[in-house]
């Protein structure tokens, strides 16, 4: 065999030796296998089965002014029509009692009905509907404000509708004019209404919407934790000493590890995707080849992140800590929980350095939209992967150099 083919064959032999070693080691550690393979599946299954995505209606107490003739029975108000986002649990005149329940967080909202609504209206003044809540969560607080505002708008519209109806009856009786009845009272009260049309191919439920993001996050976390301990173990176990003597290059070690862990990652991702599509009914509207390509790129970039951690970490403990930091950063900055657009542009660059940021967007688009216009994120994901690979290769080369 001539020089170059011999060299290539030996390079292949050395590189692929790591695939077998890594896979065998993973298989022989049932605990690790359980947490790495079954763990993500359980998380996805629990998420799919256990998360409703529906916000709980706000438990509301209506406080009537003293001597009010309005009904005291909460069910009587339900007959008036659906009250969006609220559930009337009590009607009372005891404001302090209601406030005490609010302080104890037994209820979410107190609505205080105005005492002299009709009189104020006739005198040309606005009546005040008091709304009290007890929230430190700004998101829930905003939701309460939104619901309260919407309820007041609804109430105002009802009052206008009622007044318009009465006015029309008066006009017919007093003036005999049918002209004034041509415009229905509800149109007078709400002259416009929104007609929504969603151009998206699907209108997924909350679980379906989040499922690709969960897959991306689980895949990145699994790949990072899988590979983050790898080089640390080689170093602490002393195998690096052997690698320094053997005719194996840092690049062969790295590529071998990428292939070994990449095989596992892709296998787990394929099983995860199958669970989503066939188990939870999440659609895969896009081209499966593109979907597979994104999974491959996400695995590649995530393994790079894990291997870089592994090369830089001093101990297994530090590698685990850094992996958890990556997970934490991914939850906050990837757009998984908080929209990416709400971050400062400078912070968004950090988010774009995380493979999962691109993975979430691309997998959601490919699965739920059938394609993506954010194709720049495919290139960005590839760039992150290549960048991490190069940095890992350089770091490994440095750490394998003689002391």
């Amino acid at each position, binding site marked *: 065999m001539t020089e170059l083919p011999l*060299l290539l*064959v*030996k390079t292949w*032999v*050395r590189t*692929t*030796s790591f695939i*077998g*070693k890594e896979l*065998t*080691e993973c298989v*022989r*550690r049932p605990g690790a296998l359980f947490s790495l393979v079954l763990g993500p599946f359980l998380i996805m299954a629990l998420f799919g089965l256990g998360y409703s995505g529906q916000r709980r209606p706000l438990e509301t107490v209506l406080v009537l002014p003293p001597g009010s003739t309005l009904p005291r029975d909460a069910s009587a108000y339900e007959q008036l029509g659906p009250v969006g986002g609220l559930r009337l649990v009590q009607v009372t005149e005891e404001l302090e009692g209601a406030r005490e329940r609010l302080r104890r967080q037994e209820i979410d909202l107190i609505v205080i009905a105005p005492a002299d609504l009709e009189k104020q209206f006739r005198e040309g003044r606005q009546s005040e509907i008091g709304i009290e809540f007890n929230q430190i969560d700004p998101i829930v607080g905003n939701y309460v404000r939104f619901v309260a505002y919407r309820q007041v708008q609804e109430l105002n519209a009802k009052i206008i509708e009622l007044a318009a109806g009465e006015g029309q009856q008066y006009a017919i009786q007093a003036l005999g004019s049918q002209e004034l009845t041509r415009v229905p009272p509800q149109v007078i009260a709400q002259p416009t209404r929104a007609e929504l049309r969603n151009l998206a191919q699907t209108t997924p439920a909350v679980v379906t919407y989040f499922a690709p993001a969960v897959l991306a996050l689980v895949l990145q976390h699994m790949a990072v934790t899988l590979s983050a301990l790898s080089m640390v173990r080689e170093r602490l*176990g*002393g*195998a690096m*000493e*052997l*690698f*320094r*003597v*053997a*005719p*194996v290059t840092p690049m062969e070690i790295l590529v071998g590890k990428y292939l070994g862990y990449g095989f596992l990652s892709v296998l787990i991702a394929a099983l995860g995707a199958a669970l989503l599509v066939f188990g939870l009914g999440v659609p895969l509207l896009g081209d499966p080849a593109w979907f597979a390509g994104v999974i491959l790129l996400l695995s590649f970039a995530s393994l790079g992140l894990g291997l870089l951690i592994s090369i830089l970490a001093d101990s297994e403990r530090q590698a685990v800590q850094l992996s958890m930091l990556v997970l934490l950063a991914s939850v906050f900055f990837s757009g998984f929980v908080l929209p990416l657009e709400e971050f400062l542009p400078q912070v968004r660059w950090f988010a774009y350095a995380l493979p999962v940021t691109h993975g979430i967007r691309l997998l959601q688009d490919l699965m739920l939209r059938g394609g993506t216009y954010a194709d720049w994120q495919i290139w960005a994901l590839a760039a992150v992967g290549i960048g991490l690979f190069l940095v890992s290769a350089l770091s490994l080369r440095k750490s394998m150099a*003689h*002391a």
Partner: protein
Amino acid sequence: MPERRTSRLAPVLHLAPAMSGAAAQTTPSPAPAHGRTPVVVSLDDATKEFDDVRAASHVTLQVARGTILGLIGPSGSGKTTIVRMLTGSLAPTSGQVRVLGEDPTRYRRRTRERIGYMPQQFILYPDLTAAENVSFVAALFGLYWRRRSRRVREVLDLVQLSEARDRRAGRLSGGMQRRLELACALVHEPAVMFVDEPTAGIDPILRQKIWAEFRRLRDEGRTLFVTTQYVGEAEYCDQVALLAEGQLVALAAPEEMRRRALGGEVIELELSRPVETADLANLDGVSAVRWTGPRTLQVVAESAGDATPRVLQAIARLGGEVVRSREHRPTFDEVFARLVARHRAGDGEGEADGDD
């Protein structure tokens, strides 16, 4: 430029294994003298410092092909540092290191393929079986599948681990793990092997087996650089380098090492009664005489065989009667203790001066 100093030991310590009578006595060494045999391993004034600690200091030695060199010294004496300089894991702070004619920090791949290494610690993978570990190491050295499976079988047979080939390395006993590491170091049939404390924590019977294997490899023309803290194992080596506090105290064939420690060969005599022995030291070929008991004395001579008749005659002339005479062969523990003590006392060459 690092300071270059020539070791005072260098000129006298470059001994060929063929000069070793002891080596010939234990197992005949096929290695001829340096002049005709290529030098495989050489350290020239090599020093390694870690911050303010000098782990190896101005070490100079050469090892010819087909030689077992035993690097012997107490724990922390710098043995592993020297091995790591030879494997390329550490670069010398000053001086020069050469293995197979190359600087270890710049080994070519081809050269690495000819080097075997058995580190001091167990570095294999506990979750892989014995056979899988050997196969992985074989693959690292570029052995193709067919040759790899043949060699795995052969080396496991060699180290008597065939029956344990499918057992996980982590579940093997300490001795079996050392043998497994030896199998890994041998699997690619290296020309030169660096073996760091192969017999540490191993029972004497297995130690014998391992040394027998080393000698077999040596007889095949391979060069072995073996470190050990069991000084008794010096007996199995063609050359012995004695290391203390990072410095080379002595480098010679084992029997020559004995001579240096004692100043020559030692005749031990038991007399029926004490006699005046001052004149014995003046005999031709005798360098020292000392009483070791009321009726026992040791005579240090250049050659015990030549000097013994003269000594017996002289004692008879002095009116003494020799009850028993024999050549005294000190243990290597004693030999090394003497050499190290002398080195620490300032006689850096570790050469016997016969005055003790």
